């Protein structure tokens, strides 16, 4: 599903050169729920950004769904992100001036989907995360857990094959965190491939596979469960 080969990422300024990722090789199969752990600054988010086509590696190749994307231009990359990938962020990134329903519709704005269809799909996604009663609310009126559930609804509304979650429970208490992880596990059971960056060991242990990074290098890649999702 996602294949990273010899990935290297170097950040350069006029005076400093920082190696964020060094020779990372990861192959994530369809239906896997993979967690990525490591200390702050070890390159977890950079890795997730490269998987999510939000950033380009300095070296190496990225394959998504069997296609190498190195030569893809902005339009093709945007289309791939829109159709194949769903993003969940630690700080939710909801647009405060839009209602919950309108926030969830955002990925569908960049497809040729009718307004009615957008509305229906957004409503279905919100029902899936248990927020059908908050559709007209604005993000400021929601708790942290509810905001993250809206973000999950937004990530799944376009029915992507891959969900990339960057510390989705990082801003939540443990009860809320567990609730969010349960939703992600359910999505995984329905067939979604999930890659989650986390600092929480207990959360990571509830995934199929744990990749640890240290100073930009992949140090371990452990299989925790072989019970992969078989698809919807």
């Amino acid at each position: 599903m996602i294949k990273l080969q010899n990935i290297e990422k170097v950040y350069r300024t006029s005076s400093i050169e920082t190696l964020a990722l060094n020779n990372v090789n990861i192959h994530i199969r369809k239906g896997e729920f993979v967690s990525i752990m490591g200390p702050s600054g070890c390159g977890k988010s950079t890795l997730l950004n490269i998987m999510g086509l939000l950033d380009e590696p300095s070296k190496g190749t990225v394959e998504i769904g069997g296609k190498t994307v190195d030569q893809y231009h902005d339009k093709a990359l945007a289309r791939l992100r829109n159709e194949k990938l769903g993003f969940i962020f630690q700080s939710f990134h909801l647009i405060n001036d839009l209602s919950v329903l309108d926030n969830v519709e955002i990925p569908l704005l960049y497809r040729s989907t009718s307004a009615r269809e957008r509305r229906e799909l957004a409503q279905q996604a919100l029902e899936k995360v248990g927020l059908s009663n908050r559709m007209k609310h604005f993000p400021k009126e929601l708790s942290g857990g509810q905001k993250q559930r809206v973000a999950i609804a937004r990530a799944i509304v376009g029915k992507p094959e891959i969900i990339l979650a960057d510390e989705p429970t990082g801003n939540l208490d443990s009860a809320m965190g567990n609730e969010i992880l349960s939703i992600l596990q359910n999505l995984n059971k329905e067939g979604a491939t999930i890659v989650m960056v986390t600092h929480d060991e207990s959360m990571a242990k509830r995934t199929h596979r744990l990749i640890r990074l240290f100073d930009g290098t992949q140090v371990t890649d452990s299989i925790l469960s072989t019970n992969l999702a078989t698809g919807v």
Partner: protein
Amino acid sequence: MLRHLFKLIWNKKKAHSLLMVEIWASFMVLFGVLSLIVYNVRNYVEPIGFDYEDRWILNLSNNQDTLAVGDKVASIYQRLNQYAEVEEVTRTGSNTPFSMNTMNNSVSYKDAKVLTNFYPVDENYAQTMNLPVTAGRWFNKADAVSKHEAIVINDAAREKLFGAENPIGKLVKRDDKLYWRVVGIVDNFKAKGEFMSDEPGLFTFIKDKNAWEKEFILKVKPGTDANFEAKLVKDIAGMVKDWNVEVTYMTDSRKNQHSLTLVPVVIFLVICSFLLVNVALGLFGILNLNIAKRRDEIGLRRAMGATEKAVTRQFLGEIWVLATISMLLGLLFAVQFPLLNVFDIEGGIYLVAMALAMGVVYLIVTLCAWYPSQQASRIHPAVALHEE
């Protein structure tokens, strides 16, 4: 997407209110200035209706002399006809073309009552000014003794007084008592110059011994210079002692009239441009600030599948939506002008001014939003999403 943009703008209406007021005010100012410009341009392209090159105006003032003024004027008329440099001469009232003098009054025909400019002239006026008669005839000597005074009207007066009816031979009333008979029609006659609208006008006939009308228009041979002017003034002054004799060139009077029209327009235009530049700079600053505040939203939209172009389009679209809402408010005010017939100007002029003002506002907001929108599209999503 348009619906999405309307929602975004509507939900942020308080934050955008100042911007909307700025755009609304710009639209209103532009509408005013453009109405003035469109009015003048439309007048300018309408033919003036007569020739002014090589036409001199001889102005006579009898001062304290009241003895046989009409005879003296008639003698001067005869003398003027004898100069080899003078091709045509005509006697006219003080409201010569491009002068500051105006004579007008209401005239009526059946139920139509029209405020009309009066131009006292004689039988040589049409030929001297190269003013073509489109129907009927110009004055002749016999008109001095006709039962009803003869008049020639212009086409604007014909249209307002008679509509589709043929005016030749018809009687029009002045002050509900005096009857004039229409003997001819001329096309345009814009005595105040190109920027004057083609207002209703009529020509009355000056009788020979009339002592009031003491202006002459001379059609001189091309190239006639100031030497002849000096000789002319000297000769005429010699004929009428203690009278003031003055020659002005019609081309100079025309320039003065143009300045009278153009100076206020230019002043308004400068003020308007200054206002618009300020608004544009303000808009540019606000948009830049907005984009800086919305970096994470831009990152998010890129992550959700927006291309660079889609981000540019979104920010341009937002400002267009904002401009459209502001201008719809402005249009509510602007349409009152044609509806209430303010300043008695043709409604089409206001409509053209509205369309132009909208075009200029869209152009300004697009220019102001273009660079910030381009900047927004170049924001790196990975960086924007991890700035918090």
